[in-house]
């Protein structure tokens, strides 16, 4: 196992900086601050700097960063590692968290000692915990350490859903928790089987050891099954729409853009780094088939929603479906997965969806604040009340539809090409139909929002600076469309 890289300490900082913020927030009075968000902002700046430093180091050296914690080399100790994909996703998470935080500042700014302080204290503390957990998922190399990361993520995400304390959102949070716990239990079960079989949980060590036998396949299947429930892959998605629609808009943005990507990322790790030998085509077909079903069915369901936030939540389930197509599209005989365009397409879909979806939820939140509701049928006038937000919503929609110029366009084009190359015509057809359905549900909202209201509306003004955070996220999603249309070097760094 490799020793620590010179800049490996950055990986530790990525985990630890948000934790310092989290601990500090509980004792704001002790450190002389009256408001929780005063702790959050220095932490956000530091975290952004760390993520940026990791990304540039990995890109410049062309090698993965590694760190051996405490000097105890695996398999006894724990290692952290960031390859090209991890570095990109760390930067993505930091950017989304920071922009969402800028948007949330006005919503969660109460003094810690006041009654309203509950929401502010909970939101910022949980956001910090969530960010640390995400970073650990992205850099962890030990399957049990990753289990702890998943639990940290669950405990941060679930209470965010029911911050408003209504019975409906509490119920959504409880259902989310039950699904997440079943997922963790199955994941841990697979981990136990792998330890019993190989005596190590370090992914780097397992890669060398795993044999294509029943125990290994059963263990990985259990783990992937559990992670599928956490990633809300169809038909295990039923917890997601009420949870993501019930949370306050900034929380929804983080949950939909980042939290569901963490279990998906772990499935990718298990699939490509733990499973021995070339991936089996039938299993890839099953995952891709479920992804395709998610795209078709949940896009149609999104089209029929009456609430804007519920529609966006169903769109999340559909867009997650695209990610699972990747398992079929990277299975080219004789070519390592990360040199296929399916790999680039899948990863690009992941990143561009994160920015687009965060933008969309923030924009929806601003529109709901301006109008006082989020019923799609009564959106007329939104274009005048919150023009920047509606524009951001439209831009983000481009990415979901897969129209140029946007990251979603390039991602879906790459996936489409990969499907054609692999001869998987049904996947190509699903991608095309999915784009049309997304266009239908996005334009449905835009048309209503741009219409003139029948009577003059009483709207509340919304701060332009907050609208601009949504717009920035949407612009990043668009700018991702400039990524070259070929296997992308950065995403292959550090692959074996």
């Amino acid at each position: 196992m490799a020793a620590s890289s010179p800049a490996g300490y950055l990986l530790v900082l990525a985990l630890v900086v948000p934790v310092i913020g989290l601990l500090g927030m509980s004792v704001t009075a002790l450190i002389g601050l009256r408001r929780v968000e005063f702790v959050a902002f220095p932490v956000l700046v530091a975290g952004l700097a760390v993520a940026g430093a990791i990304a540039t180091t990995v890109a410049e050296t062309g090698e993965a960063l590694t760190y051996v914690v405490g000097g105890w080399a695996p398999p006894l100790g724990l290692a952290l590692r960031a390859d090209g994909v991890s570095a990109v996703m760390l930067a993505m998470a930091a950017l989304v968290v920071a922009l969402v935080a800028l948007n949330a500042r006005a919503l969660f700014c109460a003094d810690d000692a006041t009654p309203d302080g509950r929401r502010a204290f909970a939101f910022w503390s949980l956001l910090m915990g969530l960010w640390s957990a995400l970073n650990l998922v992205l850099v962890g190399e030990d399957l049990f350490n990753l289990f702890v990361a998943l639990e940290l993520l669950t405990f941060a995400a679930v209470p965010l859903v029911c911050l408003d304390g209504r019975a409906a959102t509490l119920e959504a949070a409880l259902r989310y928790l039950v699904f997440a716990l079943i997922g963790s239990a199955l994941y841990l079960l697979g981990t136990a089987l792998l330890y019993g079989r190989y005596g190590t949980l370090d992914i780097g060590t397992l890669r060398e050891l795993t044999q294509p036998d029943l125990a290994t396949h059963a263990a990985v299947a259990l783990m992937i099954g559990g992670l599928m429930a956490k990633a809300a892959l169809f038909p295990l998605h039923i917890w997601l729409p009420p949870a993501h629609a019930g949370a306050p808009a900034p929380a929804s943005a983080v949950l939909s853009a980042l939290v569901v990507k963490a279990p998906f990322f772990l499935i990718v790790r298990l699939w490509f780094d733990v499973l021995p030998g070339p991936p089996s085509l039938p299993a890839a077909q099953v995952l891709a088939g479920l992804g395709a079903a998610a795209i078709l069915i949940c896009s149609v369901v999104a089209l029929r929603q009456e609430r804007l936030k519920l529609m966006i939540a169903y769109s999340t389930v559909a867009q997650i479906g695209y990610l699972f197509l990747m398992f079929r599209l990277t299975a080219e005989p004789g070519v390592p997965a990360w040199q296929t365009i399916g790999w680039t397409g899948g990863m690009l879909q992941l990143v561009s969806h994160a920015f687009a979806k965060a933008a969309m939820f923030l924009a929806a939140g601003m529109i709901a604040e301006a109008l006082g509701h989020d019923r799609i049928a009564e959106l007329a006038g939104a274009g005048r009340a919150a023009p920047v937000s509606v524009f951001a919503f439209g831009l983000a929609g481009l990415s979901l539809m897969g129209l140029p110029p946007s990251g979603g366009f390039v991602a879906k084009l790459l996936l489409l090409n990969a499907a054609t190359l692999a001869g998987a015509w049904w996947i190509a057809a699903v991608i095309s139909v999915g784009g049309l359905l997304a266009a239908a549900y996005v334009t449905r909202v835009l048309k209503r929002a741009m219409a003139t209201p029948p009577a003059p509306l009483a709207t509340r003004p919304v701060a332009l600076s907050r609208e601009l955070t949504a717009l920035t996220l949407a612009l990043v999603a668009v700018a991702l469309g400039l990524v070259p249309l070929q296997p992308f070097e950065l995403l292959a760094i550090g692959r074996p």
Partner: protein
Amino acid sequence: MSGPTLYGLAAALLVGLGLYGVLAQASPLRRVLAFNLMGAGVFLMFGVAARRGAAAGLPGDPVPQALVITGIVVAFAATALAVMLMRRLAQTRAEEAAAAASSAPAEHG
């Protein structure tokens, strides 16, 4: 049959029982209880691996034993969060029902 194998089979049964309970029970409280049974089965799987890996004069491999200790504490935290969510849900439902009952006649009357 050896002791660890026996406990391994018990662990397999507990996982099956717990999983069925989590999936098929209707009441959230029983689901949480079943989740704990399933968790116990999973931890026992680690325990059996630890016992089978006894070496160097130890009664068991200490690494999985330590993992189980961490896991037990995490499972406790999960149970607590679930129970508190249920409690709050019951309170809020009662409050919302009372509010609806008191406001409904006013609106129509």
